[in-house]
């Protein structure tokens, strides 16, 4: 039995947001009233879709140029975002599909429902994807997105952020989250960030400046690791038959 099919640890909700977080207005009518029904571990979705490196386009992980005209590139501070996808057991998750989306450097999304007055950048779409390597590592090249206002309350502003969608090996590990930038003073003011109550868990969402991966006269770098739910046993334990 492969570790792909071994059982998942119970979900640890202590770092997760509650469904109903009234300061984030959109949750008020979209949060279930009833508690989640806990399923026995024997019927959880421990499998999930598999995505290959071979199907990715050459520029999928380079948002600076994947929507740009020839010899042009997106406006904004050039950054490398890199890190590892791990599970709660500390093991790198290889073959994890990561999809990212973000606003441009002015804080505007290329989306028909975004009417913010900052202009679109003709050389930037704001989407990228990649698959983690054998150690669970990934990287994207992009521009730093701008902060932008939103109608949650008067003078509400989202901190600079990049959205991440992550597939592990199990459908039950599916995760969507947001990456913030170290030092952004809007993080503490944002009701979406503050849906998470545990300060250490919020810190997990804040990418750290990584001068070791910055390249002189080219780009800065940020490090952002993601953690998915772990398994009750792995191939590294002496129980090849699994649980």
């Amino acid at each position, binding site marked *: 039995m492969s570790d792909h099919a071994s059982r998942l640890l119970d979900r640890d909700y202590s770092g997760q947001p509650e469904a109903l977080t009234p300061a984030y207005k*959109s949750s008020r009518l979209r949060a279930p009233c009833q508690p989640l029904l806990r399923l026995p571990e*024997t*019927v959880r979705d421990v499998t999930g879709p598999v995505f290959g490196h071979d199907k990715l386009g050459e520029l999928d992980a380079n948002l600076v140029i994947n929507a740009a005209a020839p010899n042009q590139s997106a406006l904004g501070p050039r950054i490398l975002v890199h890190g590892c996808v791990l599970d709660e057991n500390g093991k790198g998750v290889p073959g994890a599909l990561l999809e990212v989306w973000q606003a441009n450097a002015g804080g505007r999304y290329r989306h028909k429902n975004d009417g913010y007055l900052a202009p679109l950048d003709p050389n930037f779409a704001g989407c990228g994807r990649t698959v983690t390597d054998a150690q669970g590592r990934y990287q994207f090249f992009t521009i730093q997105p701008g902060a932008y206002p939103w109608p949650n309350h008067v003078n509400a502003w989202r901190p600079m952020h990049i959205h991440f969608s992550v597939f592990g090996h199990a459908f039950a590990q599916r995760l969507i989250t947001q990456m913030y930038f170290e030092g952004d003073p809007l993080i503490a003011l944002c009701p979406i960030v503050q849906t998470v109550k545990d300060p250490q868990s919020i810190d997990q969402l804040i990418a750290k400046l990584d001068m070791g991966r910055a390249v002189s006269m080219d780009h800065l770098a940020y490090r952002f690791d993601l953690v998915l739910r772990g398994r009750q046993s792995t191939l590294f334990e002496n129980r090849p038959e699994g649980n």
Partner: protein
Amino acid sequence: MRPPRRYKESPSQTAGPYVHIGCTPNFVGVQGIYSADLGAGPDADLGGALQGADVPGERITIAGQICDGAGELITDAMVESWQADAQGRYPTAGASFSGWARQACDLTTGVFTFRTIKPGCIQTSGGPQSPHISIWIVARGINLGLHTRIYFADEDNSADPVLAAIDPMRRQTLIASQRGDAYVFNVRLQGENETVFFDL
């Protein structure tokens, strides 16, 4: 004995209103980046095709809408599905049936539509499970993606261990009814007839 957790799962954050840019860019007119939206249909890239011509099984269509606690239709959600094949086996890498699909709700009507094959019964250590499709819903205002299941009204669901664990008054929220050629599966996020969501 269970291994200690070395790390804590990353907190979830809402997918927000612009989830399409990252997950279904072609659907919102962000074209030319990916050749097709992942999980959108038989022509999709990255193995997102739910059904190839050679996949055995009954072809079915499931359509639905999602409502909030005020009964308003949600038009900015994204729905993903994961299911077994007609023999009740979950697909592995390289299988002609990927078992996974992704649909953005229509930006005006809120309708999502899955065209797939009907899954078979699944044998698990928890007992046999009736044919079902696992569903995951994200949207603006949903802080943690919601897991639920679609069962089928024309199957024998009497021995399914998951349905058996649900208050009989709420079981019907997980059962798709037949209407014409399609199954209908509507989701209510909050309030009266609230759909059952799972802690998996």
